């Protein structure tokens, strides 16, 4: 569905999308499409050349956001392992922007270990985790981000677990840029994506987004409007949240840039060491 027809005015961001591939296969009203849109806008506003970007994704609906939609080098990997692949990619590609886009089940469930270690290393990659509180692609099973009590296909009697605060986890693990937004916060999301992409070090943005089908069914929401209304009502910006008690924040989604600092970055430290050692090695007598 492409066009050069003059009577159709296209969203200018479509130049970042693989030709002939739209419309997306996302369910009606899926937050994933919104994230794609905002990501393209961020790239556009930053003036990046997509040829200097590489998208690394995992398995799940959110992993389809860049693959096959965003037109750039794309490495669509195995479930939960995108960040590990991306680390190898980034070490070998100092000139490229490495971006992981995947879902909460992929990144914080099966991929949790890789997430925290990449954060600890402060690897210079950008991870956008779309959190829809469910394993959507497989039909709606409970996820590490599903709130207690929710009835999913694998918690038919109600979820007996508590959900992850993934952004908090990642910040504690050593990430140097951490933000959380929802698909209600469009311009905030774009700005945050730009900050994350520009940030030298491990940057993480959690985007709470609607799964209108699998999760909508679990919590009785009829469409994206129900979700967006809830995000709008439950969101509290960080500045205000800081003045609220734990009790008041109980049911709230704290949004904003939660952490931003500069720390030694993994790849740069590795490069520096290799430079140093390889130069010294030419003078050394030691050999195995």
């Amino acid at each position, binding site marked *: 569905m492409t066009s050069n027809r003059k009577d159709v005015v296209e969203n*200018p961001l479509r130049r970042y999308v693989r030709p002939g591939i739209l*419309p997306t296969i*996302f369910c009606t*009203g*899926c937050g994933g499409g*919104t994230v794609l849109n905002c990501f393209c806008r961020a790239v556009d506003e930053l003036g990046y050349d997509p040829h200097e970007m590489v998208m690394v994704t995992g398995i799940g609906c959110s992993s389809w956001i860049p693959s096959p939609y965003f037109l750039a080098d794309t490495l669509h990997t195995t479930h939960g392992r995108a960040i590990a692949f991306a680390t190898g990619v980034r070490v070998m590609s100092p000139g490229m922007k490495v971006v992981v886009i995947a879902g909460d089940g992929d990144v914080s469930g099966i991929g949790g270990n890789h997430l925290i270690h990449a954060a600890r290393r402060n690897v210079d990659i950008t991870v956008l985790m779309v959190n829809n509180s469910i394993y959507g692609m497989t039909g709606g099973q409970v996820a590490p981000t599903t709130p207690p009590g929710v009835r999913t296909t694998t918690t038919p009697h109600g979820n007996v677990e508590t959900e992850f605060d993934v952004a908090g986890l990642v910040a504690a693990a050593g990430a140097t840029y951490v933000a959380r937004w929802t698909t209600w916060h469009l311009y905030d999301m*774009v700005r945050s994506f730009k900050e994350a992409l520009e940030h030298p070090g491990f940057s993480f943005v959690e985007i709470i987004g609607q799964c209108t089908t699998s999760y909508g069914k679990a919590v009785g929401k009829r469409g*994206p409007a129900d979700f*967006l209304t809830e995000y709008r009502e439950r969101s509290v910006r960080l500045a205000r949240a800081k003045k609220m008690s734990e009790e008041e924040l109980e049911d709230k989604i704290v949004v904003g840039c939660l952490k931003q600092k500069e720390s030694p970055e993994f790849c740069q430290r590795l490069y520096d060491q290799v430079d140093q050692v390889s130069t010294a090695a030419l003078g050394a007598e030691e050999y195995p």
Partner: protein
Amino acid sequence: MDTMVTEKTEKWNRRYRVHVDHRLCDGCGVCLCYCKPSVFRISPELSGRGIFPAVPEAPQSCTGCGLCELGCPQLAIAVVADDPEGGAA
């Protein structure tokens, strides 16, 4: 393809053309959620895709905030400022 030229708005002194590509629109209604001045409605007529698409029913109310364009999951919407002199921006 549904485009309506806006009347000159009192408040913003700008006119906007709101374009919804019905080959992509799947009628999810997200644009209705984002749009404060209620520019959109869901059309009662089926589009070529076989769904009820969003149409800009009241483009004269459009403030050019661009939330619909940015939020549309199918990248189906383009909001273009109309030059006050009369040409398209």
